[in-house]
């Protein structure tokens, strides 16, 4: 008993000291991570003068002009009408969304097969799918560019959806396999004995047990596809252009309109942020590839 209180007091003293260090480290960390986001948001609400003001202003008259300017052409850009920003935004949602959807649907099934069944060349196949994710995009961009132009997929949403499905599939299979591996086969056997077919067991027992894994996989895949820049900037030019290359292009076009760039950047961040908040616990489970994850 005495010893315990003694140790506890040491721990307490230590923790009081460490609280201060923790605050300092955390403060540094936040200034690198959250502050830029905050600054981005402020800048998107500033007019030209406020943006270039020095010292930087935290208090100013906010304006939504930058956001409006993203969607509606300004005088400088050649008068009235809409810009292609809305189109790019829609493209981003559609290609990232459907690319994620197909990758997850396929990954959920293929991951199960890889976890539970033995088939010829399984390990080679698993390694191959992961290696597609390890290659730098630049290495495969030329063959893909040639394939896409021959097949008429150049600058189409279908092409981009295919591309993102392919790029995410390996990751989806691996994460899902990790989750399935952590489920003892006894559950399936119990289901068999209880009178169900393998397919029914997959839907009624296995899928509900890996909901977290599916959410994590969706998060990873969507964020990758949503942020993807290299493929999009080479393969799309106009009709299927997504936000990342669009914003990059805006940087060079009509001078440097930092306000609009900040607004576009902030719009780009919102879905990722929202997604993160909803599935952050599952994302952590996904990081450990389900090995440590609770079901």
């Amino acid at each position, binding site marked *: 008993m005495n010893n315990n209180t003694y140790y506890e007091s040491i721990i307490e003293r230590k923790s009081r000291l460490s609280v201060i260090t923790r605050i300092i480290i955390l403060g540094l960390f936040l200034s690198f991570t959250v502050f830029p986001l905050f600054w981005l948001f402020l800048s998107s609400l500033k007019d030209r003068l406020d943006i270039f003001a020095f010292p930087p202003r935290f208090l100013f008259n906010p304006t939504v002009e930058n956001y409006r300017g993203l969607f509606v052409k300004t005088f400088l850009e050649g008068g009235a009408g809409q810009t292609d920003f809305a189109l790019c935004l829609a493209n981003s949602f559609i290609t990232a969304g459907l690319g994620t959807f197909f990758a997850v649907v396929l990954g959920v099934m293929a991951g199960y097969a890889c976890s539970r069944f033995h088939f010829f060349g399984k390990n080679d196949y698993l390694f191959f799918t992961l290696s597609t994710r390890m290659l730098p995009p630049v290495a495969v961009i030329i063959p893909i560019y040639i394939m896409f132009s021959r097949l008429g997929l150049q600058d189409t949403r279908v092409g981009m959806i295919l591309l993102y499905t392919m790029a995410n599939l390996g990751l989806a299979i691996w994460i899902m396999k990790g989750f399935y591996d952590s489920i*003892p086969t*006894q*559950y399936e*056997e*119990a*289901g*068999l*004995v*209880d*009178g*169900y*077919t393998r397919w*029914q067991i997959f839907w009624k*027992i296995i899928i*509900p*047990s890996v909901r977290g894994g599916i959410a994590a996989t969706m998060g990873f895949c969507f964020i990758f596809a949503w942020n993807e820049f290299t493929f999009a900037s080479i393969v799309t030019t106009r009709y299927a252009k997504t936000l990342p290359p669009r914003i990059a292009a805006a940087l060079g076009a009509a001078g440097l309109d930092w306000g609009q760039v900040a607004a576009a950047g902030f719009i780009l961040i919102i879905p990722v942020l929202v997604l993160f908040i909803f599935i952050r616990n599952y994302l952590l489970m996904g990081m450990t590839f389900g090995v440590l994850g609770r*079901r």
Partner: protein
Amino acid sequence: MARVRLESLKKHYGSVRAIDGVSINIESGQLVVLLGPSGCGKTTTLRCIAGLEQPTMGKIYFDDREVTHLSPSERNVGMVFQFYALYPHMNVYENITFPLRACRVPRKAIETKVKEVVQIFQLGGLLRYKASILPPGDQQRVALARAVIRDPNVLLLDEPLSALDEKFREEMRSELGKLQKRIGITTIYVTHDQREAMALGDVIVVMKDGVIVQMGSPEELYEHPQSVFVGNFLGTPGMNFVECLYDNGLLFLEGTEHRLSLKRSDLFAKLSSYQGKEVILGIRPEYVSLFEKSFENGLSIAILAIEPAGRYRLVDFLIGERVFRVRTDWSLPLIVGHKVYLYFSEDHICLFDRSSGEAIVT
């Protein structure tokens, strides 16, 4: 509920012979225990009966219907897995009705069935809880309820008590025995714990290295082991063994100058072919009495150790190079190092062939 018959069942994994010719006949409503050390093929046998493994050879019958090649879902068996395998995302009610929902039982019938098993397994207050948060004892009752709710042909239990702690295990054991009798369901119970087997089994099937070494009632196995292995495996502690030389009604205990003279005439007949040969004498710890005074046929041996065990004491001796254990009550004052006289109850002596370990007389 059905009779279950296994006909020279074999299951080989490559060169591993998990089970190698197992034949058992189980009457309807019986509780049969498959007993044996780890790795002897108990689980494999059970999984073959459930249909989770396809036997390499042999046949399985429920009543007179052959089920060897049916899928698990066509066999209507109930199974409790070692760690229960309750579906973690379902509550207790959903878990126990899961087998019924597989075969489209009408709602009304489901409710009646649920009421029945809830009453039997005392699950009253638990139905709405997630199965995964229940303590092991409750989980086990839920697993049992799920296994029997469909009135299966046979109930299969694979070491159902091994996840519980010692104290609780005994409680659940007797509970389980009573429930089985009450429901009257044909049951196959797998365990490596001979005490469980002795307490529960109508019939015990002792297995080793994929084959049955002996089967029979607990009493039969205990009193008349057909091999050194069974004698040693059953009982706490197991049977004592002493190597002896047989000569004309006399047993010379090897490594000592002691000898026993046999009186039972039936022993002489059976031992006639062992004249001048070595045999193994086996006797259970409780069939040896200790005396302070010399006695005919008494062996005077020094006490090696004394271990109190509740109402009894276990007294260790050294005969030859083997420890020999005797169970005795507290009436005699015993001191480690002092000599006492051991008297073997001749009715309970077993004799085994030295080379094969098979019984000559039990």
